[in-house]
């Protein structure tokens, strides 16, 4: 491992994080609440640590794929640790384990919270909480690549390790340019969303918070009752649509920008994503009409918002779906596992992997009927490499293992089965709310410190797609000479 170079890159990352705290500093300055000093201290700490790490001389600047993985996993842990400081220093969250949970939940765009009540928190802190969603959604390291003047060839390893999906690819030949385009699309869409929300009648500050939460598919709100607090149909529809947009692969957005509309509907993953969401909305609407809501329209309104928020792993809520009938709740839990598209800001297993798994099963069935048959797995008219197909199956298995181990540890706290099961499902899928105690109106506050730390790591596992985190636990990864 090229440890010097890794430290150097991590130092740069911390400097970028310091810069990303400036908007929150500005907000706290405007509202003049007592969180100002917490930001100043954190920024100073970040700058000093970052500059010291950056000043290390690295004679060899090559980064191989394991270095890329190390940078991503260590970088995310570091960024989350420093990101927790404003919460802790301002006194908004008195325990550091809680602050770390909140920070990880922000950066991984989960949106689970240990706060029972958020409306009384200083505005700068709330802004920072939502801003972590925004930079975590597209990726902290991708942000670093976008702002760096010259990103070398080896930095592609970093982007590959951080971007979600089985086979991340570049949009344009240069990595720095790709990162800039991605953040450009992201920024423009976010600004459009803010404007639309203001037009729909939401106050500017609340629009900012909800736009940042939607863009990162995070789900932190400044209201205890989330989006439901406004009871504003327009805002709900806008957020529903934009959650869907941010859950779509950004490569498709780029294609559409270039005028290639057809690419969107030719894409296997997008069709699956759209189809699943529409099916879920229809089924839930039928199930809810008459049992919870009286009119079809009201059922449709809440079913579509909830389907979009859970499938894109955002985690806002307009109603307490904990009270819904079991059928709808099971659909929501299934959507938690599926997640949205690869290459988006969303979490979960990702639609493309489900598509791949389904196609593999189909291939296995054909193999039984025609034992000598040769079939390739095709997506979008292109034959996929076997390593990608088998990568998807092993990813699914690894996901389930992490899920099982986490449930086992969390169950020590003795909460009921639904709470335990959905709390892990929601954190590994970076969704936000679960059912029962951790439902849309609940919080994770009652869990023990051990469980909170486990949840924090589970969120990181989910966001970074397991392998970069798992590699930290491999002994041979740390040895100087690894054979």
């Amino acid at each position, binding site marked *: 491992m090229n440890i010097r170079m890794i430290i150097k890159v991590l130092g740069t990352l911390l400097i970028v994080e310091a810069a990303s705290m400036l908007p929150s500093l500005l907000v706290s300055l405007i509202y003049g609440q007592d969180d100002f000093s917490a930001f100043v201290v954190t920024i100073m700490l970040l700058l000093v640590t970052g500059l010291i790490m950056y000043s290390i001389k690295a004679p060899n600047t090559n980064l191989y*794929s394991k270095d890329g993985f190390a940078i991503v996993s260590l970088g995310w842990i570091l960024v989350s640790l420093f990101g927790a400081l404003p919460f802790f220093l301002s006194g908004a969250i008195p325990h550091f384990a809680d602050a770390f949970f909140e920070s990880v939940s922000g950066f991984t765009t989960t949106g689970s919270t240990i706060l029972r009540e958020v409306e009384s928190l200083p505005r700068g802190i709330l802004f920072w909480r939502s801003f972590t969603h925004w930079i975590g959604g597209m990726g902290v390291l991708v942000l670093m690549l976008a702002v760096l003047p010259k*990103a*070398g*060839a*080896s*930095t*592609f*390893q970093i982007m590959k390790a951080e971007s979600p999906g089985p086979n991340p690819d*570049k949009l*344009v*030949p*240069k*990595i720095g*340019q790709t990162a800039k385009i991605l953040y450009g699309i992201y920024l423009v869409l976010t600004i459009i969303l803010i404007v639309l929300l203001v037009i729909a009648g939401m106050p500017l500050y609340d629009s900012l918070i909800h736009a940042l939460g939607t863009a990162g598919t995070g789900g932190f709100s400044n209201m205890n009752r989330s989006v439901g607090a406004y009871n504003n149909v327009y805002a709900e529809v806008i957020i529903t649509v934009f959650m869907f947009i941010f859950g779509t692969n950004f490569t498709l957005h780029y294609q559409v920008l270039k005028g290639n509309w057809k690419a969107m509907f030719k894409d296997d993953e997008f069709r699956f994503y759209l189809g699943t969401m529409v099916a879920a909305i229809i089924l839930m609407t039928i199930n809810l009409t008459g049992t919870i809501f009286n009119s079809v329209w009201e059922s449709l309104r809440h079913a579509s918002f909830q389907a979009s928020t859970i499938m894109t792993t955002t985690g806002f809520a307009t109603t307490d779906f904990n009270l819904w009938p079991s059928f709808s709740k099971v659909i929501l839990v299934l959507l938690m596992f599926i997640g949205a598209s690869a290459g988006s800001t969303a979490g979960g297993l990702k639609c493309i992997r489900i598509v791949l798994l389904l196609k593999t099963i189909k291939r296995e069935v054909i193999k039984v009927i025609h034992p000598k048959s040769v079939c390739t797995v095709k997506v979008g008219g292109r034959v996929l*490499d076997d390593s990608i197909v088998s990568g998807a199956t092993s990813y699914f298995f690894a996901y389930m293992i992490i899920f099982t181990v986490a449930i086992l540890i969390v169950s020590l706290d003795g909460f009921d089965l639904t709470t335990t099961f959905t709390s892990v499902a929601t954190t590994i899928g970076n969704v936000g709310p679960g059912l029962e105690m951790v439902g849309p109106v609940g919080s994770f506050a009652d869990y023990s410190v051990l469980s909170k730390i486990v949840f924090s790591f589970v969120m990181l596992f989910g966001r970074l797609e397991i392998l970069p985190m798992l590699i930290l636990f491999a002994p041979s990864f740390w040895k100087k000479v690894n054979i």
Partner: protein
Amino acid sequence: MKIIIVGDGKVGYSLAESLSQENHDITIIDKNPEALKKASDYLDVMCIQGNGLSASILIEAGVKTADILIAATSSDEMNMVCCLTGKKLGAERTIARIRDPEYAKELSILRDELDLDLVINPEQAAAREIARLLRFHSAMDIEIFAKGRVELVELKVTEEMPIIDMDFMTISKKISSNVLIGAVLRDNEVIIPNGSFVVKENDILYILGEPSSVFDFGRQIKKCIPKIRNVMIVGGGRIAYYLARNLRQFDMKVKIIEENMDRCVELSELLPDCLIIKGDGTDYSLLQSENLSDMDAFVSLTGHDEENLIAALLAKQSGVKKVIAKVTRINYPTIIKNMGIDCVVNPKIITSNYITRYVRGLTNAQGNPVETLYSIIGGQAEALEFIVHNNNAKFLNVPLKKLKLKEGVLIAVIVRKNDIIIPHGDDVIKKGDKVIIITKNRHLTDLNEIIASGGI
């Protein structure tokens, strides 16, 4: 610039490597996913898996807005078709690697009909490079123009040279060689000389001309060009053929050792002036009986790196002054350096350097109506290539001696179709010529600007 490279072999990869370091947008197309994986892992480029001949793949790679399309697959025919398709689809310029000597003879037709901007033959380029290494000290700075047909060679004036204290007029009368002194470096300052310039000791002259003329000039002024008369070549492949033909121009005697009888017969037909010997080039007794130790230079060009290196070591041990080996694998340059072999050439690297240089010229010329632009003499002067159009009418067909040029500007070479003209007073510029201008004056953007006010 947006550059598409078709074919991710050694040439494609090293091209992508050097061009991406110069900040171009590179897209590589290849059928082989293994080769692409290496490129996408180590280079900041985009890789597309597919057939570079297919229009849809080329369009996906962005051929419509591409500045340069480089076809570097292993097949000549594929490269030609690829460039043809690419040009029709909208690529600004196309570069093809064409190596078959059959085609090499018809290059100018091919170039015109297929509208190729640059054709490169790796073997021929390698042969030129080896010939250059044999003619000059390797430390000497050499620049090439007009696709390798014109050289700019650096020459330091020392006291034993007869040209000291002569002006250029006298020199050109005394020394019968068709060359031009393009620039002089005196006390670290570049001077673009005229006819009355007087040469002093310690001046560094930049001599411009066709390779054979430059060599001839160097010999006449007794610059200690290594006295190489006898060259032994082991391996009779295409490079050996081109090299032997090349060396004959400089009156060097060439002996080729080749194992394959049929090839030997073929070579003896093609190269009547050379001695062809059938035998194993790594066989020490054969080499000795062919008096290896009396040779001035030894070049090993077989298809195996190991044989080339061993033969070269044998030659070095026998006391040959200059030993050159061809090595195809590029992974171990430092080991070879320690072995004591004078020079190692790699045709693929030479090819890729050649194209890189061309691309650099194009990049420098961007935003200028200049064809290509090279900075020479450590960036202190520029060599610009213009194409003569109608609007340069005021000096078309006017003898150069009647043109009054600005100070610090020199018409260095006129390329007329396939002819190279080192201009003298009576030569004229015609429409359609390519003119290479050497100038100290930056920002020269139009050929008309070289004429001093009240010229002609």
